[in-house]
């Protein structure tokens, strides 16, 4: 993949720094050169990169680092922190009007995902027990109104429209009135995509703005946008006074450097992140996680949260106990595999793990869902006794399992070997974690990852 080469280069440099007891100015400079390339490759605006590098260098060469016992770590930490800071530090919330309804205006280029994001935002508000109203203000793109109507129907939020012959300004005004009359506490105005240089359409947006006096003006930006993102944001900002940004299509393999730049240039915080075209509630945006992602450091936090929401806590605790006491059997193995698969396609999970880019490069491992199916078949072909006591599996048993699962004896052998190794590893971990063990299985997972993939 395009980015992984660079991410691993960056990780190498950081790896070198980490091991050093003393970091010279030269080391920092070399690292900064790689950081600069990584940021540029991730589409971070070049002006932002320049300022950023200067800032980090300043701090890294200063006292902070020299006094530390692990200067390399400190440099990495500085980079990460500064990046987070650039994107706004903490997560920012949606504004709320003193007197309802709260009006939210959605704006952006064509194809950024305004209509879909409007739907997702409505769903989020619905989840928080509000009564949102969607206003269909895109009269230009064929079937845009229809799209919003379908979305509205799916999530159960009314859509206000006057067809595509009325001016969007009038639609917005009438829609707002409609919301007031019907006690809607949030109004989301979807607008047509427009180029920031299209004066006529920008004027129209301006009129909608002055008539509806929105509490939030959200710019919807495609996370894959390149260096142009900054111009777009700046231009919209100067004409509309944006209050926030929605970053869409973050489920792609983009590093989303545009995000970083937008906040740095306009000062508008990124409030939401959107993934997928299925109508799920918009997710709040976390600058710290995005920083890790831009640096190719993975997104452990999101992974852990994902795990927490889809894995049965009781089962996980039980599993963890078994792992610690090395009672782990093939039955547990099967169950655990199912749990992991609930999290979603495996390659997506891998992308969230730090250092995975590097691993994939090295071994050329391809995550094959079919392979997992095969493993499942093997385990399911074992008898109950075999699952619980793997050591009883002799050659003739293995042969039977192979026939039963449609694999070869070699496949079965390999799996049993891997399973044994895994058990051994678990024993080691449990002794390392001490008698009390980690608080939760997931925390243990995090610790394990930290050990295995130092970067």
């Amino acid at each position, binding site marked *: 993949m395009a980015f992984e080469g660079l991410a691993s280069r960056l990780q190498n440099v950081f790896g070198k720094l980490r091991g050093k007891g003393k970091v010279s100015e030269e080391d920092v400079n070399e690292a900064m050169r790689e950081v600069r390339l990584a940021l540029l490759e991730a589409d971070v605006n070049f*002006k932002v990169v*320049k300022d950023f590098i200067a800032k980090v260098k300043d701090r890294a060469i200063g006292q902070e680092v020299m006094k530390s016992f692990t200067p390399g770590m400190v440099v990495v930490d500085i980079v990460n922190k500064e990046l987070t800071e650039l994107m706004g530090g903490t997560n920012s919330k949606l504004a709320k009007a003193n007197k309802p309804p709260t009006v939210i205006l959605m704006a952006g280029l*064509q194809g950024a995902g305004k209509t879909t994001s409007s739907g997702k935002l409505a769903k989020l508000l619905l989840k928080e027990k509000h009564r949102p109203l969607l206003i269909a203000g895109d009269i230009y793109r064929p079937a*845009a109104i229809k799209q919003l109507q379908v979305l509205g129907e799916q999530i159960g939020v009314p859509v206000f429209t006057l067809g595509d012959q009325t001016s969007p300004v009038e639609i917005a005004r009438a829609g707002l009135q409609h919301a007031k009359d019907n006690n809607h506490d949030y109004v989301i105005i979807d607008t047509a995509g427009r180029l920031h240089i299209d004066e006529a359409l920008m004027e129209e947006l301006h009129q909608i703005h002055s008539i509806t006096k929105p509490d939030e003006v959200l710019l919807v930006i495609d996370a894959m946008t390149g260096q142009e993102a900054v111009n777009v944001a700046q231009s919209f900002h100067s004409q509309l006074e944006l209050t926030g940004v929605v970053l869409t*299509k973050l489920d792609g*393999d983009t590093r989303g450097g545009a995000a970083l730049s937008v906040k740095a240039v306009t000062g508008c915080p990124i409030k939401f992140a959107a993934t997928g075209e299925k109508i799920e509630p918009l997710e709040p945006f976390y600058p710290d996680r995005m920083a890790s992602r831009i640096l190719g450091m993975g997104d452990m936090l999101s992974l852990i949260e994902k795990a927490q929401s889809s894995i049965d806590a009781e089962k996980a605790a039980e599993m963890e106990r078994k792992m610690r006491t090395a009672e782990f059997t093939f039955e547990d193995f099967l169950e655990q595999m199912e749990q992991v698969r609930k999290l979603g*396609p495996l390659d997506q999970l891998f992308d969230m793990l730090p250092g995975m880019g590097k691993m994939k490069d090295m071994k050329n491992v391809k995550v094959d869902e079919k392979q997992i199916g095969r493993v499942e078949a093997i385990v399911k072909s074992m008898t109950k006794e075999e699952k619980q006591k793997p050591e009883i599996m002799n050659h003739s048993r293995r042969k039977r399992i192979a026939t039963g699962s449609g694999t070869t004896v070699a496949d079965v052998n390999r799996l049993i070997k891997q399973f044994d190794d895994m058990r051994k590893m678990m024993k080691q971990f449990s002794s390392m974690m001490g008698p009390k063990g980690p608080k939760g299985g997931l925390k243990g997972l995090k610790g394990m990852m930290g050990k295995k993939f130092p970067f």
Partner: protein
Amino acid sequence: MSFFKRLKESISQKTEAVTNIFKEGLTKTRTAFVEKVEELITRRKKIDEAFYEELEEILIGADVGVNTVMTLIDELRVEVKKRKIEDAAELQPVLSEKLVGLLKSDEQSGLRMADSGMTVILFVGVNGVGKTTTIGKLAHKFKSEGKSVLLAAGDTFRAGAIEQLEVWGQRVGVDVIKQESGADPAAVMYDAVNAAKNRGVDVLLCDTAGRLQNKSNLMDELNKIFRVLQREVPSAPHEVLLVLDATTGQNALSQAKLFGEKSGVTGLVLTKLDGTAKGGIVIAIRNELNLPVKLVGLGEKMNDLQEFDSDQFVHALFAGLIQKAEESEAPLEG
């Protein structure tokens, strides 16, 4: 004859209307990119590290792509040493030539049409790049060339996508083959190919749902569509066009690579080129991928979708430079 002169001659054979569409659509890129380079050269008299760094930033700022820029700068350094260039002004022709070299290619990249019978073109791409709009515009283009066209509504996923294509069908005056929302897109393609065969149309344009290139299940779906088309018409699809949004940054390379692997992309369509100052992605794609740009969207109007012509593109970008080159050459030849 100099390179620029040759270029100018090849341009002059083409219609002025097309030249103007290219020139207008690329205004933003020209001012943001070429003029910045010129400004840099006049401001910085000497070639030193700072000069290279600024040049690097201008190029990267135009989305030319880190790898391409690094190679370009390295080549420039070598050239500067070899020719013992000290003055920035002397570097200008070298730089323009290198840039033009990156953009220029000799193969002409028109759409591949079937030798006989129906031409099937499949459109793929991530969400929101303008696949449906491109199909609408292309249908208009074929129609005005006197060809009969049929559209296949393969985006059964996004709300309103089928209706959007239908509106285009009405505008242009061509039929749309569709099923209801949520249907198997491969089944829609099957219907469409058969309908197209029965009606004996010249061109079948197949829309698909936008998908991110790292979603392997969706990419497999695309592969199925591809197989269905191939089974029904052995030589089809004659073109698989990946639609790219010109404002996309470095992710465009990943898109081109992964879509290329999964759906056998034969060419690219760059949309919204008029809205970006970052036409540089064209250079990155040309340099790093072996895929020709076939069509470019240079504006909102129906006929703003043009076949990509590298001569026109280079000319529109470097028009100012070309004039200067001529002026300086004139006395030599005269």
